[in-house]
């Protein structure tokens, strides 16, 4: 089934098509939600809210972006809003603005360990790091999605990398 056919069937509230669309994107979206929130329960909630919004607003989807990109944008906003509701969220503007490069050495980094370290980052810095380094967004896109300035996005990313390097060394 093509993406357009899937969308049309979802618009008709076809439950099997909705399930198909959910299955197609659930892993990528859930993983992103988990990386942004650092909590599986919160990721579940974000994913549920995201797909609910997707199915309720699917008629507004235009083919300017891929369906996956459209869903991802919704999820990022949901996850960001979810993170902001927690007291542990670190205000982005309070971070240092040092932009010097980070030396990652030559040793391979264990991915599972890297994930744990990423999850230990402050939430704002973690969100920017995941969106730019993992998901491939630009600073401008991140600024738009998270409602911050591009400068803030850059400083957050730099902070996240330095903090990651420190944590990985330890």
């Amino acid at each position, binding site marked *: 089934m093509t993406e357009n056919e899937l969308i049309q069937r979802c618009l*008709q*509230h*076809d*439950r099997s098509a*909705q*399930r198909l669309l*959910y299955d197609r994107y*659930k*892993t*990528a979206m*859930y*993983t992103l939600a*988990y*990386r942004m929130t650092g909590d*599986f329960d919160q*990721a*579940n909630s974000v*994913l*549920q809210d995201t*797909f*609910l919004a997707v*199915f309720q607003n699917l008629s507004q989807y235009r083919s300017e972006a891929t369906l996956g990109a459209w869903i991802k944008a919704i999820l990022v906003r949901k996850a960001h809003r979810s993170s902001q509701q927690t007291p542990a969220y670190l205000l982005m503007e309070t971070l240092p603005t040092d932009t010097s*490069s*980070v*030396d*990652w*050495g*030559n*040793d*391979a*980094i*264990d*991915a*599972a360990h*890297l*994930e744990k370290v990423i999850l230990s980052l402050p939430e704002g810095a973690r969100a920017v790091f995941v969106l730019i*380094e*993992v998901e491939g967004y630009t600073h401008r896109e991140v600024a738009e999605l998270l409602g911050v300035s591009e400068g803030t996005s850059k400083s957050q990313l730099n902070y996240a*990398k330095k903090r*990651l390097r420190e944590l990985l060394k330890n």
Partner: protein
Amino acid sequence: MSDLLKHKLPTYTPPESVWEAVEQGLNEAPLKEALQHLPMHEPHPQVWLELTETLPTARPLRWWRYAAAATITGLLCFVGYVFLHSPSEDAKLTYSQEKAFPSALLAQNEAIDQQYEQLQAFCETKTPVCEKPEFKDLKHQLDELTIASRQLKEALGKYNTDASLSSQLSDIEHERAELLKKLSERI
């Protein structure tokens, strides 16, 4: 020519920031590699179940609604037809107005006059049937109506525009036709 251009045209040195960006990319190679292999996670099945509880269900097929509407419409049409075409006790009085065409009326009168003339000729030959009392009585009525008809025709004149006189003439001609019919049956 190309060598000459190479030496004549100016050259440019990139800013140091370009190399710094390249160096940073190279330095981040271990990070980029590890990021490619970050674990993926599956959502709990409960997420979908809770999602389906909040999603609106598919709209049922509405063909039966159209069928019901068509049936009701058909039924109403049938009842209406029966109501309009059934003989009603209250509907005994009818009213209609017809306009007689003078030319048609004139043609009809001429036909009656011809029959009347034929009847006169028939009786002038002393046909026995004309002497019967019943026949003579009918013939007498016909004679009187014929006289009245002629008088009315004279009163109407050439253009025949008086509606009441035309109506009277029509009635007389009708009676004359009835009498002619009865007389011809006895011949």
